[in-house]
């Protein structure tokens, strides 16, 4: 009899997650964004893959529908790139849960991602991942505010003053 966590069978959770995603379609269809059941299943599989890759484990669903809910009204997401962006966002999310040493709650991290995806990154997932989130994670690890700017410019100084 084994007590290895890797034997944890998440198939029940996967089914639940797929049905949750299908339910959100009602909310996202106003933006022209809809996922089919196979697409939802693929997204859930991406989550499992991301969890495994980042050495994490999840016992309840919820993150996928949160990501969809937060990002569905983004001006940079359309039905052309909807599925692709979601897959990337899920992977980025779990990667930065680790990078922030779990110091940021799920909601705060997704909100931060949305703010910078729609803002400075202008819809670029690369800029979001390698610039904004990287900077935020470094700030958190150094005990600074997530929005702290290292660059010594008058604008950055003004922003830092506003943060503190």
């Amino acid at each position, binding site marked *: *009899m084994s007590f290895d*966590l890797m034997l944890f069978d998440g198939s029940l959770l996967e089914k639940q997650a797929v049905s949750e995603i299908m339910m959100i379609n009602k909310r996202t269809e106003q933006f022209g964004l809809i996922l089919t059941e196979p697409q939802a299943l693929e997204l859930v599989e991406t989550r499992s893959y991301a969890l495994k890759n980042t*050495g*994490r*484990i999840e*016992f*309840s*669903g919820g993150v996928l529908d949160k990501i969809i809910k937060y990002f569905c009204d983004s001006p940079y997401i359309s039905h052309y790139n909807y599925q692709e962006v979601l897959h990337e966002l899920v992977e980025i999310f779990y990667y930065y*849960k680790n990078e922030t040493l779990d110091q940021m709650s799920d909601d705060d991290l997704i909100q931060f991602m949305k703010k910078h995806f729609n803002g400075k990154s202008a819809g670029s997932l690369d800029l979001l991942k390698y610039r904004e989130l990287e900077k935020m994670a470094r700030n958190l690890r150094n005990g600074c505010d997530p929005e702290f700017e290292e660059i010594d410019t008058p604008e950055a100084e003004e922003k830092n003053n506003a943060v503190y």
Partner: protein
Amino acid sequence: MQSIEKHSKINKQRLGNEFYFQALLQEAHNQGELSALEIESIQMQIIKLLADSTEAYNKGLSSSVKVEVAQTIMKSNLYTIGLYLKSFPEPAAALDTVKSQPLSDLYSLGRSMIDTKLNVARYLYHLVYKTKIQTSNASYNDTIGEEGIKGFFKDYHADYEAHETSGSIDYQLMHPITDLAGVEYIIQYLQNWHLENLFCSKFEPAILHEVMCGYHESYADLLVNIFGQALQNALGCAMLHKEILALNLEASDIRKIKNDLKNETKESILEILQQNAAIIIKTLEITNTSLKAYIWASLPEFSSSIYFAVKNDTLQKVFVPRVNLTSNDTIQYSMGTKTDDESYRIIVNEVRSCRYSDDKIQIIKEQFKTLSDIEDILLDCALSESEAFVIFNLLDDVEIAVLVKRHPCHPEINAIDFSEAEIILQQYLDNYLQTMPKNRIAQIQTIGSNIEII
């Protein structure tokens, strides 16, 4: 009428104490006492319990955790359930409970048992602290202090790391605890330590110190057990009909023991040790049955080490002569307790704000009674040389000798190793000594060389 007992194939001896629940399930699985359905149900319940605990761990802010964190929490949960199951007299009854009751209920019962055990551990710590012996062994003193067992009570997380033994527990007991974890480990450790303290407190601390110096002159920095060495020497004294409380064995005594034991086997040495242990128990008026059992349990290990020491001619490592490293006319000087920081700061500010030297001296005379405080004042108050001399005049030769020993004048290394205030104090002391007659300086130097500041 005979009672009917359920026959179980589970062997109690094969169940470890450290993680009882896992061992019970494994053994039940091996013996075919758990069906595939029951195993699946238990596994599902374990995962459900883990999910609940993980959610509580994350305070609902995060839905995922690192696998290592989840594994630690799961281990903690299983340990807690095992703690409750251990309270059943037979493994079969424990297994029936696992099959019939939800694991979450068993966890709750185990969790409340941990709280009770923590209270027991706190009480035992109190006993250990009350009976602690005076020793310079750092591992002993550190383990009893803030960073040691006290750290356990501060850092122990019964909800998520119940199986962990936080705190730095370095002191080596005669009987190491190998098959327990978490709070159970601490309880057993403290019980053993308390018994060792009870035995050691029968002897003068100075005698124990000399015995341990005989074991190794740097014993203060070693991970050694004081009880074991004291008991071994006591056994040696009992064998030679010497005063047990003195624990004093000369080199000739050790040779005599070697001659007496050279033809003995391990078993016969054990018998001899048992006879002498009985004498020790009687002489030292040991009535505590647990302590008696603890002493008896130590004897097989001693008999083995004595047997091999006799064969290898290393008996002087088992029975050690007392060694007095300090000469007889050494003075142990305590600097006394320091005034608390807040009060000290107020007084220093008061002294520094005084305009006249007389007022400063008056405040210092009134407020400070220990040399420790006087030394701080001399360093912190920026006194003039004449003011410092007045303070020095208030001190006797021993106190001056202590200050000189702590602040010797080394002009060649001063600039690198000492603060400015320390250099000034060294110069004041040096100048003050030069104002004294030569015979008094010699007397102070003699005192200084024989003084041990504690």
